[in-house]
């Protein structure tokens, strides 16, 4: 089957101006035209520098794709329906490996591959938020449970933390993550780790609360859990946005040295921001109303139940079978196109990368400054979310940080929070 699909591929090679890549729409049309598949719904993906298959479905990631090309960019085109089949993912993986081999010279460097779903599969699973208002040593992680059948999957325990107070170091009780459930949401995000100290749950400090209280708070917020942790491993911290953009004085106040006490003030405005957000995100209760007197009510009832389910289904994976093609679709030849770019030798991918991260941070700041308007800009939000996701998988996924020794960093149970 593998061979078949490989043989079934069609190749095209064309060029695009590197500095004026233009809009995604145009590119899409170009591809359609080049492959003469104008009446087909296709997914466009590309192989990035790491050999990962990444999607192209908007202007941003198109730009990014173009900028990473050196000088060749491999673009993969697949039919929309095919993408949805999970079995197809393995094919794409094998193909990706091929892509790595062809694109990169250091064949020896074998890295585990992250599976990245196709764009319409994308839904937020987790995100790092409020980076600019938190001290660098802290991390605020949001876990989205809705629509996921994965368990949240972590345990917390009591422990002792050491804080810097005006009276010197002081031992205080704290709450720590004690265990990750393999395959759980918490583990899969890579943003939380064993022995991370939990500082806040959905904007509320946990100091002075018992383990059971914190457990109940987390479970009560499980549909949209935001935990602020002090990671035990401080080497994966997100680089502070303010360093680059120099935007807010507030965030520079809360940098490292003054430590924990200032966190509460910094976190206060965001804590106020939560409730609105929660309302919009919360799953609504299911109401089944059965008609008693008039049978016509029944239809009404079903509408009600559907409506209430709708809020969940938007986040769920789309239905497995496409509506327009009943039965097993014939496996069409996949389309692979390669785009070559006219590039200036002076412009290397590194600087591009830097500018990208700059843009990301700008977005983060934007997100913060416009916090109140968030719900009115879902599109912006969504794009940020996926950017965060990319950012986090690129930088903080511990599975990618090979050099880091796990455990052994700190004594068990005691974490120094500065």
């Amino acid at each position, binding site marked *: 089957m593998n061979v078949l699909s490989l043989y079934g591929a069609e190749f095209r090679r064309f060029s695009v101006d590197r500095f004026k890549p233009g809009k995604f729409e145009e590119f899409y049309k170009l591809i359609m035209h080049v492959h003469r598949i104008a009446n087909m719904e296709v997914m466009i993906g590309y192989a990035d520098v790491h050999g990962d298959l990444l999607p192209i479905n908007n202007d941003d990631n198109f730009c990014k794709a173009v900028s990473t090309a050196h000088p060749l960019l491999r673009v993969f085109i697949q039919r929309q329906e095919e993408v949805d089949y999970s079995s197809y993912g393995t094919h794409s993986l094998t193909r990706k490996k091929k892509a790595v081999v062809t694109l990169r010279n250091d064949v020896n460097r074998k890295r585990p591959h992250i599976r990245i779903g196709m764009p319409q599969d994308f839904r937020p699973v987790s995100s790092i938020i409020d980076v600019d208002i938190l001290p660098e040593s802290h991390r605020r992680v949001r876990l989205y449970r809705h629509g996921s059948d994965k368990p949240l999957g972590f*345990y917390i325990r009591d422990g002792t933390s050491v804080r810097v107070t005006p009276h010197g170091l002081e031992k205080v009780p704290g709450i720590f993550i*004690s265990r990750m459930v393999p395959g759980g949401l918490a583990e899969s995000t890579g943003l939380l780790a064993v022995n991370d100290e939990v500082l806040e749950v959905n904007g509320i400090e946990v100091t002075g*609360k018992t383990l059971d*209280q914190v457990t109940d708070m987390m*479970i009560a917020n499980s549909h949209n*859990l935001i935990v602020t942790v002090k990671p035990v491993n401080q080497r994966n911290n997100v680089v502070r946005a303010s360093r680059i953009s120099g935007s807010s004085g507030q965030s520079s106040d809360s940098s490292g040295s003054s430590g924990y006490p200032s966190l509460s003030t910094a976190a206060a405005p965001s804590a106020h921001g939560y409730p609105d957000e929660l309302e919009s995100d919360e799953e609504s*209760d*299911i*109401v089944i109303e*059965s008609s008693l007197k008039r049978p016509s009510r029944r239809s009404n009832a079903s509408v009600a139940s559907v409506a209430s389910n709708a809020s969940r289904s938007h986040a769920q994976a789309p239905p497995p079978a496409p509506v327009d093609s009943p039965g097993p679709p014939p496996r069409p030849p996949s389309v692979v196109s390669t785009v070559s770019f006219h590039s200036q030798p002076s412009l290397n991918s590194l600087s591009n990368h830097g500018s990208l991260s700059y843009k990301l941070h700008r977005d983060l700041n934007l997100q913060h400054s416009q916090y109140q308007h968030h719900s009115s800009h879902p599109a912006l939000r969504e794009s940020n979310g996926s950017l965060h996701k990319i950012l986090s998988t690129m930088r903080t996924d511990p599975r990618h940080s090979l050099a880091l020794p796990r455990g052994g960093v700190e004594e068990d149970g005691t974490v120094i929070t500065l």
Partner: protein
Amino acid sequence: MKRFRRHGQESHRDRIKQELYQFNKTVEHGFPHQPSALGFSPSLQLLAIGTRSGAIKLYGAPGVEFMGLHDENAAVTQIHFLPHLVELVTLLDDNSLHMWTLKAHKGVSELLEIGRFTLTGPPGAPPSVTRVTAVLAHSSGELLLLGTEGGHVFVVEVPGFRELEERNISLEIVTHSIPEEYGGRRSLEHVESLQENPANPQQVLIGYGRGLMVIWDLDCQSAVKHILATQPLESVWWTEDGLRVLSSHSDGSYCRWSVAGLDTQSEQEKSEVPYGHFPCKAISKVIQLPTKQGPPFLLFSGGMPRASYGDRHCITVIHSKTHVALDFTSRIIDFFVIRDGPDQAGEPSALVVLVEEELVVIDLQTEGWPVIQTPYLVPLHCSAITCSHHVSAIPLKLWERVLSAGALQNTHYSKKPWPITGGLNLSPDPPQRDLLLTGHEDGTVRFWDASGVCLYPMYKLSTAGVFHTDADPNDNMNQCTEGEWPPFRKVGCFDPYSDDPRLGIQKIHLCKYSGYLTVAGTAGQILVLELNDESAEQAVEATVADLLQGQEGFRWKGHTRLEVREEPVLFPPGFQPFALVQCQPPAVVTALTLHSEWKLVAFGTSHGFGLYDYQQKNNVLVRCTLNPSDQLAMEGPLSRVKSIKKSLRQSFRRIRRSRVSLRKHHVNNAAKLQDANARLEAELAEMELAPVQRKIEARSSDDSFTGLVRTLYFADTFLSDSSHNTPSLWAGTNGGSVFAYQLRLPSVERRAEDLVTAHPAKEIQLMHRAPVVAILVMDGHGSPLPEPLEVAHDLARSPDMQGSHHLLVISEEQFKVFTLPKVSAKMKLKLTAIDGSRVRRVGVAWFGSSCSEDYGESGLTVLTNQGDLHVVSLPGVKMQVHHPCIRREDVSGIASCVFTKHGQGFYLISPSEFERFSLSARCVVEPRSLVEVPHQTPTSLSRAQPDGASEYRYEQPERASKNHLCNNMKTALTGGKALSNGGDFHICSVSIVKEECNDGE
């Protein structure tokens, strides 16, 4: 401007809140947990009880109560009132002495600690030298004699606690005064007893542990007489005329000695082992009281034959030919006798016995020595309390009928009034009649008058008669066979042994208007009872409700159903059962409600819920709520035992493993042994310190016991359309589901024939899946729907049916308001997401304003798993106030909490005590009582003092004490935890002390 206005509104709301809500722990009802000491002041007519946790409680006439708590968490071992004064001295387990007084403040007396003292011996002396074993509060009111373990007697001036070293009675002096041949060089041991000669206050009898008694003259500082007893001494009693001394001993004997003569050695008149022949246990206390005509009363505790009755707790009373061994069900702490007459010098009238679990008072002047019913200190826990239910504002008619039914049960009690009469009860008459019902493990329901400060027993209902139980009903322990020796008589009602745990009462619901009562128990039994003034013989009709509804694959491993008596049973006047529903499987009933207007009872267990029509005696509806994957709910309570067994096995294994690892090391020398011990200790410590972890996981539908029915609610509301209101039944489960059924009731005239029907109308699944603890429907005005029949009796205004109704679903995590009839979420209050606490108990209450008579608000009273009380406003579900109330570790306290309809509540602070609290500013029930300084009558021959002396003495010690406090910074802190009437007066007491200090300087 806008901001300013809002601020104004806020402060206005704050003022209203202050007028509506006020938190107080007001009074403790019931019997103090673990009493350890008893004291009585004949002049004040006050009884004092000290407990092992360091509390002292004073009781006088019904309603007169004081409470104090020592700072030290040490047991109170002795309590002594200073004769003819309002002070008392307590001795604690930690050898500290404390002085308490009753001080009038704004017309109400308060119990305050005014000083503390610890005996300091000569430097270098062992602690036993100053360890106090006996205390005598001298009748002068100025001296305290302290006998110690070392055998010395220290004399201390009170209330200032000044040691009078020159008056101490040292062991050496005493030893020199007794004949050489007695005892030789053996120690006299500790001071067991100190007694003052009733006829001569200057003579004090010192009893030593080895048996020697010495009469010491305080004036001439020398021994006057000695009594050479050979058996270890237990107690000493000086007869009223001062001519004889009684001593009781550890071999079960008591002796009478004449001390009238001038000889230095007194003679033994009589020595007797009352339950003799075989070895007997010690007689721990003996007293003898004269009567005007005829022989005296002799009372002693203990002395039972060791082998056959060594486990009995007995007090023997002998008067003339009557000899009774009162047999108590728990250990005797202490006892005293109250005497008639103004000087307490008359005939013995009542015997007051404090046993570990109750206070028993026996009328000594009525034939047969019946028990006098106690108006307070009632043993709530005569059988363990399993649930409670409070009904406010009982109609007079029902009240009287319950009282008269109760009176018929209490014919065996003495008719005499309560003999302890000290103090004046100044608290106003309760505004309404409130009933507290407690369900007990033995299947009884007790009705208590909870209107005022005294929780008074009214009536007791037993449900055991409906069923066949293992226990033989004719097994009456009170029957004593003729000629039995010792002549036992069972007294007291504390009986912790339940015949059949299945009888335990779990849920109670009483309709105060109709007198219908429903109670449900551990084995899935639901009884419906009706109040009947006549006794009746009837069979109880049983109906089985199969809650499984054909669910397959489950096996109930719990207890079996109770077996119902087929034959008619004679029920005494009172609440008589006429209908019975038995759930199948017979799991414990978890929710119960009754609608007397519709004549329906709804019940729920961990498997489902049902609706029973008690007029037609049939099941209207049975609904299974079980989740097919929930095995735990199915297996019943026994499966828990397995897991305990398992964990036990594991811990044994762990210990064995560590022992094995120990054995491997050849333990030859001490160092190695120590090493191994240290390792074992470390291992154990690690085992203990192994972090407790909690799983963070969203609740799923597969969790255990999601089908358990937590709450049931009847409402006449708009369930299906907004123009017609219909009767409805609502059920909430542990898994966050709400089921609503529309009920169709036949017209009143067809009610007996036509069937009641129930149709499923709505199901709500809360997405947060937290257990639903309460459901409430609010009318168009936003007030909760009235209780059934409340409107019919003109006691509530009829609900507003014009505006739209709202449904309030209270889960453990959230308060959520939905619209009706179309259920859509309107607003909510999140509790758990904000502060991590969960709702444990919730009640609907009316809060009246303390300032304006006609203003009030409805609210929810909420108790969380953290032990905090909250008031949540209705219909807006906004948090109003919150107060920490119960320690969060006190799980049984939190579980036992019950709210009243007027913002008060009760919870168990021990198995035997209810704490009463109030969240309302208007409705507060708390003791207010005044104790006046006793006026001495000049005829009191033994303590002949000039008139007005008491007045003088009252003033002086107070001043003295305050000076003392000023001088001693340490003691100045003692006011710290003095509680009076359960209120927060301790700050007052400290400030008073300070004020006096300033005056003095």
